[in-house]
């Protein structure tokens, strides 16, 4: 069979699936967001919903808050994950093998797990405040800071860190193991110290994997609903909760607005991911990073 036909044949399941459930969904949202939604009699096509989105103070404030929140929590997860991955990446060492197995655990469990545990542990009637009172460190549980549904979103950040630090570790350790010591040995022979080795060799070589992990985690923290819904602060609502409420409230005439918000967010996320990839390309390790 000619290669071209073979490629088309092999790719057809993917394109069929994506056309049915992805492109069509995006297209339909796009049409709707332009104001064409005949079921409820909306037929005036235009950019009016995008206009009102950009004029909505609530939406913009929520956008900014969510963006900064996602940026901060993702950076924390990547930084800590990077450090731990470098500390424990040996393949032969039993100790680091156990570490890797432990790091895989949170990746396999849903977010609701850690939410449940956090509520039991650090809410004001939780175990940690009780323990502190028992030990006499704190006079009463009322002195324990509010960590869930708090204005600083600490509960959500803790949840995301629990899930994402291990995710970063797992993705980086796999790359580090593949790289083994080949380039490290050369650098040492040419006179590099441990720190120079990390900075000039190892870090650039895993930079692409780190950027990928950052993008995936950022998109999640920016756009996932369940954790902010359970642990978020009502006064400082995060974007996913805002959009979900708008979508399920049942007022069909609001749907074009919801869809325009969705598309704005999607476009923003794609552009942001593209920007991160561009930056990564520009930084050391951008060319042929991630050892072959």
């Amino acid at each position, binding site marked *: *069979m000619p*290669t071209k036909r073979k*490629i088309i*044949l*092999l*790719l057809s*399941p*993917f394109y069929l*699936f994506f056309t*049915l*459930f*992805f492109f069509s*969904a995006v297209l*339909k*949202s796009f049409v*709707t967001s332009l104001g064409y939604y005949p079921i409820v009699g909306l037929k005036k096509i235009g950019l009016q919903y995008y206009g009102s989105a950009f004029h909505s103070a609530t939406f913009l404030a929520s956008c900014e808050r969510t963006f900064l929140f996602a940026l901060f929590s993702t950076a924390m997860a990547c930084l800590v994950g990077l450090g*731990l991955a470098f*500390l*424990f990446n040996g393949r032969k060492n039993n100790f680091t093998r156990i*570490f890797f197995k*432990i*790091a895989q*655990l*949170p990746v*396999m*469990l*849903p*977010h*609701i*797990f850690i939410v*449940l*545990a956090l509520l*039991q*542990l650090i809410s004001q*009637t939780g*175990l940690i405040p*009780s323990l502190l009172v*028992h030990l006499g460190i704190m006079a009463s549980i009322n002195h324990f800071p509010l960590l869930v549904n708090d204005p600083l979103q600490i509960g959500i950040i803790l949840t995301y860190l*629990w899930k994402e630090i291990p995710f970063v570790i797992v993705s980086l350790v796999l790359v580090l193991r593949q790289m083994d010591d080949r380039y490290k040995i050369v650098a040492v022979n040419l006179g590099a110290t441990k720190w120079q080795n990390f900075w000039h060799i190892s870090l650039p070589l895993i930079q692409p994997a780190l950027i990928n992990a950052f*993008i*995936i985690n950022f*998109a*999640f923290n920016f*756009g*996932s*609903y*369940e954790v902010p819904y*359970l642990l978020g602060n009502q006064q400082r609502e995060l*974007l*996913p909760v805002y*959009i*979900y409420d708008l*979508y399920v409230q049942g007022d069909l005439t609001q749907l074009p607005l919801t869809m325009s*918000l*969705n*598309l704005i*967010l*999607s476009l923003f*996320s*794609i552009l942001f991911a593209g920007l991160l990839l561009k930056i990564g390309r520009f930084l050391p390790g951008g060319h042929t990073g991630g050892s072959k």
Partner: protein
Amino acid sequence: MKKLTKLAIFLIFSCFVFLPLLVIVLLAVGKSWNYPQLLPQQINFGSYFKLLFTNHELLTSLTASISLALGTIVLTISIAYPTAIVLAYYQFRGKKLLNILVYLPLIIPGIALLTNVDFMMIKLGLDGSFLGVISIHTLFCLPYAIKLLVDNLALLHNRYEVVSRNLGASGWQTFFQITLPLSKNGLQGAVMMTYIVSMTQYLATLLVGDGKYLTLSVRMFPFTQAGKYKIAAVYGVTFMLVTLIPLYLIDAWMSHQERRVIKS
């Protein structure tokens, strides 16, 4: 001294991972664990297992979770495998674009993608159907599955396929005798990851499933919200039983197999 710091970091990290899990297990098997008691007054594993085998809701959740996960695995692999073969073995126009497309479901914010797709599912009449739910799960599984398979296939490239064809094997024979056995590790990884991603989905299952597929992670949500931590934890422990144990066993079996190959 340096070793000691490393050990301390290791212990802190282990606590960070295990403490929440321990709390959930204690919640599930503990009795009368109320504020301000630090530990449950009674531990009873029996009551948990009794619940596991008799509670109708728990059992339907379990079946829903597993059947969705299995359906998602079949759909995901049948799409991801041919796509990965093309991405790993061939150069063609539009490859770069395809590489980006594959990752879009992970880059677009979940809430935006989910509401978009749910909206489309209603239109297609798949809202609340098995196919609809496994399709949305597949959308989130595909990036991981394709990545794992491509990495595995690219490692070997198609040099052995070329040998096989040169020795006279047909395309299908080459696929079954060479390509499939060589991608065993990649397929294993992709299946395991798909299983995990499908099992952990919450909003996708709820929204597209129209509330008809109350999986373990979906059911944990309202119980947690309502403060019924014990029953939520029972679902949580069940979740761990059906994910961690089988995945650990598969992993152990595979590495045992590998070691045997190396020894011989």
